[in-house]
């Protein structure tokens, strides 16, 4: 479904992502873990068209995404739940949800989906007219996920959805992800919480500093790579 082939992304002369290749198949939940600065978010920015790769190829359902604008990529079926939620704080919850349907033409169905989303995430229905900035971190995260889902994406990208959230809320977010997976939503999950990610993901890519993939595999395969924690911080043998 999504294939990155030998992708490099540079900030000036510095390579944030270096010859990275990864693949996401339909209905998979793929994890992408690594330390701060490993290039995980940069990879998502490249997929969503915010950053242009300096080399390599990004294909989604057989068509290249390189050089395509972020709004056009959303229309092709890829939605992003960004790091720190980035909900529109001055807009009401309802307006935030409405913005999530911007890429759709089926206005009636979109309206029905907003209603359905408020039933799925009751807190959004309860605070429908409240400004987004007045929600708690966990509520904002639900809003960010709902907003992305309203685009009816075929691939959902999540960038550190548990960042800064209380442990109880982190559990809720992972529960939501598992529900989405069961519903057949294809997900690429970027997380620093490697253990939880590997647990829920079908396969996980481990990035190391310098923007390269260090390991890749299922939870079982990764567990067989010696001392994974040691490997994860970049001291282990490459697989």
């Amino acid at each position, binding site marked *: 479904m999504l294939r990155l082939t030998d992708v490099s992304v540079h900030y000036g002369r510095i390579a944030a992502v270096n010859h990275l290749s990864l693949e996401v198949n339909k209905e998979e939940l793929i994890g992408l873990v690594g330390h701060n600065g490993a290039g995980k978010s940069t990879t998502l920015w490249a997929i969503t068209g915010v950053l242009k790769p300096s080399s390599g190829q990004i294909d989604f359902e057989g068509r290249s995404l390189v050089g395509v604008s972020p709004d056009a990529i959303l229309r092709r079926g890829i939605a992003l739940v960004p790091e720190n939620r980035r909900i529109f704080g001055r807009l009401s919850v309802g*307006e935030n949800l409405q913005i999530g349907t911007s890429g759709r033409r089926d206005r009636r169905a979109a309206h029905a989906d907003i209603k359905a989303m408020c039933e799925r995430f009751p807190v959004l229905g309860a605070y429908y007219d409240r400004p987004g900035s007045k929600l708690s971190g966990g509520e904002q995260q639900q809003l960010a996920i709902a907003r992305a889902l309203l685009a009816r994406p075929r691939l959902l990208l999540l960038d550190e959805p548990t960042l800064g959230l209380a442990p109880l809320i982190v559990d809720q977010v992972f529960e939501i992800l598992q529900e989405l997976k069961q519903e057949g939503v294809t997900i690429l999950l970027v997380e620093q919480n490697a253990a939880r990610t590997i647990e829920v993901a079908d396969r996980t890519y481990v990035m190391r500093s310098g923007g390269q993939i260090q390991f890749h595999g299922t939870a079982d395969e990764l567990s067989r790579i010696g001392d994974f924690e040691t490997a994860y911080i970049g001291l282990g043998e490459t697989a």
Partner: protein
Amino acid sequence: MISGAERRYAAVSGGLVGAVALVILVLALIVGTAEGVQYTLDSLAYGSLFAVMALGLALLFNVMGLMNFAYGELIMAGAYVMYFTRSWGWLGMMLMTILIVTILSLLMELIAFRPVRNASPAVLLVTSFAVSYAIQQLAWTDVFGLAHRFDSTIGTGIQKGVEPYPWLTTQFNVGGVLISRLEIATWIVTAVLLLGLTLLLKKTTLGIQLRASTEDFRMAQLTGVRANWVIASAFAITGVLAGAVSILYILRTGAVAPDIGQGPLFVAFVGGVIGGLGSLSGAALGGFVLGAIINALSATLPITLKSHTQLFAFLIVIGILVFVPNGLVSVRASAFSRVWRRVRRIAPAEEPT
């Protein structure tokens, strides 16, 4: 529970009422009640023009980080369109002015600003200066003999480009206060424009997309908001506002010149800054307040100081910026919210975590 947006609107309304009350009070004290009311009404009309202009500037500034100094040239273009269509009757002239200025605004976006949309703010700023300079120079090159007609240095002196309509500018007496239809039209048009824009921003899909874009343009794009559509819409709205301001401004003076837009642009820009360019309502309030101050000063200063009106006005601007460097609205909003919290005793648990 009151929302942040409602608080901001309440703050802006409070600011407007306060500003008007202050102007009336000061003028009444200085010149007596009847004249005070007269000057206040004049200042309201004059300030309204700059409120609309500052709103146009703030819209583009918030949507794409562009401080469009070529906005003054839209006013100038409007003045020339009025000159060429002055024989068409007032309705034809006005419609054509708004149409041409809007098209020019869209062309600016398409030709000059779209190619540098993702460039740094410095590049955007230089581009806006370049567009402003280029259009103004085009007007100075005596295209259609216009510079010759309107430039006092090479032609026959500054002439009235658009003769004011007597039925519009003739003043009539209402209880000792002189009012013209143009003044009334200015209040109505600016009120309709501000109300219309508010409704558009609050009630339509485009408006919600514009507000989202003003808050986080990149994220708006990532949720599917079409960048080309929303930015072109912002330029179109700006064009309509500039066209309306051209008409109201030129009908007051009748003067047409290549640099006619520079003065109003500067006042609107500075007004927007003192109101808070980060907020559309704040910028409109700032434009209104500065326009009203300039008009009030020019009416009340002694004859020997009248030529220094702008000096005094900008001294007041410096004073405002010293005390409220983030603009009038942000300060008023926070002050208002503090008072509101105290009145309603909102529990800390309701605050965002």
